[in-house]
């Protein structure tokens, strides 16, 4: 029996990649230091963003920049520095008011952490980043954090904690919240 070559036609349907775009985008710029904010304590973190209660979910996109966050510019990468004094560090968590999941935590005496700071030494990470993945700079190294880590359920808060009420380190957070309804 003669064999016939058969080719499965490629339809446009399986060529198309589904694109999901956010229904709204909120641009957020925030700065400050616990030592000058009386309402920011070790037990009452500083809320950076609250996902709308009516959305399906919200994804945090940390601004990518070749500018160092130390300059504190709105277009720069985010910077959460630590100081050498005991407990002068930051940590990020997502909470629904009852349960909190910790995302990243620094400690005093080190450099803290940065997000998506693409200076000359780490541009090589760029090709492997997916959409909302985040390049984290910590100590003298870098690692990639999945974008899933920064996905908020409706009403959840992204908040910045401190190890001390007197922490005088200044943070800079520059991100977009992509909201899907």
């Amino acid at each position: 029996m003669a064999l016939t070559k058969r080719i499965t036609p490629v339809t446009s349907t399986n060529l198309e990649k589904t694109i999901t775009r956010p229904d709204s985008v909120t641009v957020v710029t925030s700065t400050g230091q616990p030592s000058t904010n009386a309402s920011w304590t070790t037990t009452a973190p500083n809320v950076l963003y609250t996902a709308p209660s009516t959305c399906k979910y919200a994804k945090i996109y940390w601004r990518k920049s070749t500018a160092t966050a130390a300059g504190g510019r709105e277009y720069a990468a985010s910077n959460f520095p630590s100081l050498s004094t005991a407990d002068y560090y930051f940590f990020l968590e997502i909470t629904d008011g009852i349960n909190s999941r910790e995302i990243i935590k620094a400690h005093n005496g080190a450099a803290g952490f940065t997000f998506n700071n693409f200076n000359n030494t780490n541009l090589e990470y760029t090709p492997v980043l997916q959409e909302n993945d985040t390049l984290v700079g910590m100590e003298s190294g870098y690692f990639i954090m999945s974008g899933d880590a920064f996905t908020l359920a409706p009403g959840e808060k992204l908040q910045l904690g401190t190890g001390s009420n007197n922490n005088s380190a200044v943070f800079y957070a520059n991100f977009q919240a992509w909201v899907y309804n």
Partner: protein
Amino acid sequence: MNTYIEVNGTSIIGWSSGAPATENFFVFDFTPEKPLGAYEYVEVTETETVADPNDPENSTIEIEVVVGHTIQERADWVAPEVPAE
């Protein structure tokens, strides 16, 4: 598109556009071009002439009233040094 700010005293500690980032943000027409630390949120006052409540002769006094707020650049603000890349 609306812009929003969060303040702590005269310090502006948050800014967002598109929607308020948290319940502490409120609508304010302002778009920063420098770090938020470069600005201060201050009262706008006006002098009004009103009847002196302590004067039976119906004389008037001038009082300062707060008519709103504005954002202005801090006089003592110095641009941060940008580390060499």
